[in-house]
């Protein structure tokens, strides 16, 4: 147990380090922005009609406080940290005065749902196919599958996304290609709403799965084809253990370990969002939010989303990492 505590402490230190670096980086980049959020909001507010110059001045003062753009660089930096720790990124400019955190909170379930599901499906399918392909190396059918999967792997997300969009949106329009769910439905636990969410999520998820399978397939196949020649497998085969048991208990199980680590890493990255897929399918997630924020020149939204995803990815990877000793006991011994 002592080894485990040291492991967790080390990982925690790393987490703090990553978060501090990421937040500092985001602050520095944003600080040199030519966009002044205060002036931008002012021009937004005053564009509706003539406003008394005095009230503009008062408004400017309170906006400065709100956005924390007062004082020296160091003061601003600590103010920024204070707001990050409170989870307060100020109001959004394009949806004034809704707080940025509220908007992020609205987009988060979509991104998490879509990406978690897609990652898990890609992992299961890729590993299953990879394990079979590695075990039956000389099977002609598996070679064809391998060729197909590996040809898909290097194709970038936007290409497969656009291709699916063209096929199912223009040539054979059977699936919705834009949005997260049917707009006229009340969000809730009704069957109509859930089935609509599934329908709208099919194409974006399929895109991510198609792109994701290849990597798992390739690494699983090479892992399995190495284990197949190991002594304990050869012995089991010679000893007449049914080949189904050899495959599942002797080979696949041993090959799983590194793949589980990989899965944990990709699950952590779910919080980074899938910008391109969400953009192509107009999916209401974090990535889409970020792009929309850039188009709208929404300073606080863009900064908020970046900071949030940096922290969320780091924390998620940390949480998954500290459960790792449960799978691999070697970590516990330190």
């Amino acid at each position, binding site marked *: 147990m002592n080894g485990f505590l040291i492991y967790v402490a080390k990982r925690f230190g790393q987490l703090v380090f990553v978060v501090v670096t990421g937040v500092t980086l985001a602050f520095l980049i944003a600080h040199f922005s030519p966009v002044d959020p205060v002036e931008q909001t002012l021009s937004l507010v005053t564009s509706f009609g003539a406003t008394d110059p005095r009230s503009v001045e008062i408004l400017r003062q309170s906006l400065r406080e709100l956005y924390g753009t007062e004082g020296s660089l160091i003061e601003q930096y600590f103010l920024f940290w204070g707001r990050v720790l409170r989870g307060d990124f100020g109001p959004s400019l394009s949806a004034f005065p809704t707080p940025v955190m509220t908007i992020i909170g609205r987009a988060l379930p979509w991104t998490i749902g879509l990406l978690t599901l897609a990652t898990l499906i890609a992992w299961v399918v890729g590993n299953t196919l990879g394990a079979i392909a590695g075990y039956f190396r000389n099977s002609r059918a598996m070679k064809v599958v391998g060729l197909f999967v590996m040809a898909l792997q290097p194709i970038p*997300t936007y290409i497969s996304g*656009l291709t699916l969009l063209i096929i199912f949106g223009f040539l054979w329009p059977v699936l919705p290609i834009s949005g997260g769910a049917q707009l006229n439905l009340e969000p809730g636990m009704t069957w109509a709403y859930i089935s609509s969410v599934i329908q709208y999520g099919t194409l974006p998820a399929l895109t991510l799965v198609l792109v994701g399978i290849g990597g798992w397939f390739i690494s699983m196949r090479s892992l399995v084809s190495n284990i197949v020649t190991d002594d304990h497998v050869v012995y089991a085969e010679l000893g007449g253990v049914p080949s189904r048991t050899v495959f599942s208990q002797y080979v696949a199980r041993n090959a799983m370990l590194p793949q589980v680590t990989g899965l944990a890493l990709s699950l952590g990255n779910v919080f980074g969002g899938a910008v391109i897929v969400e953009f192509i399918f107009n999916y209401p997630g974090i990535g889409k939010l970020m792009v929309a924020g850039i188009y709208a020149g929404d300073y606080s939204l863009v900064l908020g989303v970046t900071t949030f995803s940096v922290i969320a990815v780091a924390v998620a990877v940390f949480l998954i990492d500290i459960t790792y000793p449960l799978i691999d006991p070697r970590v516990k011994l330190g």
Partner: protein
Amino acid sequence: MFKVLRDLLRYNREFLFGSLLIAIILAVVVASYFAPYDEMMTYAVIPDMPPGSEYWLGTNSRGQDMFWQLAASMRNTLIFGIVVALISRVIAIAVGLISGYVGGKTDQAIMAFNDTLGALPNIPILLLLVFVLRDQMTWPVLALTAALLGWTHDSRLIRSVALSLRTREFTRHAAFSGMRTTQILLREHLPYVMPIVFFTTMNNLIWAIGLEVTLSILGFSDINRPTIGGMIYWANAHSAMVAGIWWWIAVPMVAVVMLFIGLFLLAMSVNEYIDPRSRLARMGA
């Protein structure tokens, strides 16, 4: 070197196919230097012509010949990728070799920094930078940023090899015979990590080009400079699919798929060649 190449071409079908794809792409890139008109020009030819004998790949709604547009785009996109790959390779090699050779506390410190940088999600940070720089975000700036973000994984790989080279006999010999550290790293250790460098360069190229295309499709780069992503951006902006000008979107997509599969096949076959186990299996041992 030539013998290796000949063996790869003869015994490895993936390598042959990959080289073929890349050769086609390179031929198109070379052709871009013989373009009959300036690549930035619009309405140079009749708009919306389907592919045919006069315009091989058709023309788009902006009055550009798709073939010459593709050639210029492919050149610009490839140059971007190569610049990113080169800069990040230099960083990765330097960090990996030094960290592995020096070892101890220095190694730990460097790797802590390395892992921190690697743990940051790239796309949100790049998007924030694009947002802040706006029009000052030229492609060299983007290339430099991408290079600074894209070396961490590879330097770790290189370090792991350097770590084992450190304790080998010849390193000790070199050190005792008075070679300076830089000499040892460059003359003794670098050749050992070259195969890994080559393999990771391909992957880095794929990553960098993907990044550029991603940002261009979103319109976050100089959209007047022809790039593969820029072509798709303009096709989307003119709703090419709805207007029925399918070749406008198909040409860049097919080209980028060819490029990526080509690079991927090269990377994979070289990786397989480096690994003696799989090389033996291929030769039928």
